[in-house]
């Protein structure tokens, strides 16, 4: 199992860490994650590999590494020249590790509990965060390995929920942020979106199906209909903390 440790859109870099499990399974996970990272414009894809042997400092001051026996990198990723293995500067791979990036949003952390991997990423409540959601979401999903069709439905659904929240949510307090949580369970992915806004339930907005909107040739307003149709479950809760959107989708192995 691998986990997304951070995505740096300024440096076009994605960093993953081996979160546990046998050596073999992460090779496919990393190859898939590297492909997705390149799709979202992150061409420097790194994997922190416990037990890797440091060989030299490169121009970025990062440590290049030689994989330990049995942990050779995926050949396809190597040939593409877009990914590299990096020796971890700290202990990785321990169960329950949580790592947080720099102080400002997005703040990202992951947690491994046995075979279950969970993420929480906090974004600024701003239109610019839509792009960051579009970067983080597929990278997190890729570490769990859903099929392409399920991956896309989840990407679209989460993006549309976040876009809706940013567009219509009215923050009640500073800092104006929202948190995306994802939890990968056997056969399904569960998630939540938590904001600090006034009450707003997207499912109560006037809508109609995507086909009905298409028949009326409406150029806008597809977002809510899309995630309601693409997800298996969607619920809205409102508490003193704000709106909490709960969702889940079954996935094929």
């Amino acid at each position: 199992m691998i986990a997304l440790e951070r995505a740096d859109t300024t440096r076009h870099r994605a960093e993953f860490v081996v979160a546990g499990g046998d050596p073999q399974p992460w090779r496919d996970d990393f190859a898939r994650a590297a492909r997705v990272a390149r799709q979202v414009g992150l061409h420097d894809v790194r994997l922190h590999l416990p037990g890797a042997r440091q060989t030299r400092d490169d121009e970025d001051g990062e440590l290049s590494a030689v994989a330990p026996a049995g942990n050779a990198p995926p050949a396809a990723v190597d040939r593409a020249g877009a990914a590299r293995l990096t020796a971890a500067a700290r202990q990785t791979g321990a169960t329950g590790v949580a790592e947080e990036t720099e102080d400002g949003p997005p703040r990202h952390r992951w947690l491994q509990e046995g075979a279950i991997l969970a993420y929480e990423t906090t974004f600024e409540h701003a239109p610019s965060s839509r792009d960051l959601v579009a970067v983080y979401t597929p990278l997190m999903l890729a570490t769990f390995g859903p099929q392409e069709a399920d991956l896309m439905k989840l990407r679209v659904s989460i993006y549309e929920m976040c876009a809706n929240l940013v567009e219509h949510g009215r923050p009640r307090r500073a800092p104006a942020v929202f948190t995306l949580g994802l939890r990968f369970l056997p056969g399904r992915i569960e998630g939540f979106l938590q904001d600090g806004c006034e009450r707003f339930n997207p499912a109560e907005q006037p809508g109609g199906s995507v086909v009905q909107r298409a028949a009326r040739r409406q150029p806008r307003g597809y977002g809510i209909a899309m995630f309601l149709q693409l997800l298996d479950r969607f619920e809205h809760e409102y508490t003193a903390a704000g709106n909490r959107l709960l969702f889940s989708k079954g996935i094929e192995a």
Partner: protein
Amino acid sequence: MTQGQDSPARALPAFLIVERDPLPDGTMRMALRGHLDADGAAELQEHLENLLEKGVRRVELDFTQVPFISSSGVGSLISSIGEYRDDGGDIVLARLSSGLRGVLKMLDLLDYVTLSQG
């Protein structure tokens, strides 16, 4: 022709529209690159409207390098397809990934759009 502009504020790569040689029947071919989100959708819709004003009636959009489409992208496509059909033309979607095709199928839009047989 290539359209699209890098913006330092954007985390994602710029959306690009690359015009290719037209087909013998006059169909204008365009390859799309990048995320078809709100920014890309506005750019694509404007481009398609300009072509329609110039007399182009049939366009094929190559989605090979489109990894993601948002509701804005879906909305702009549907709106543009309607305009072309009103003028006796159409917009054909080509080489959609299995993921994008799956989204359109789940939204019951596969019967609404015209997919390339190639």
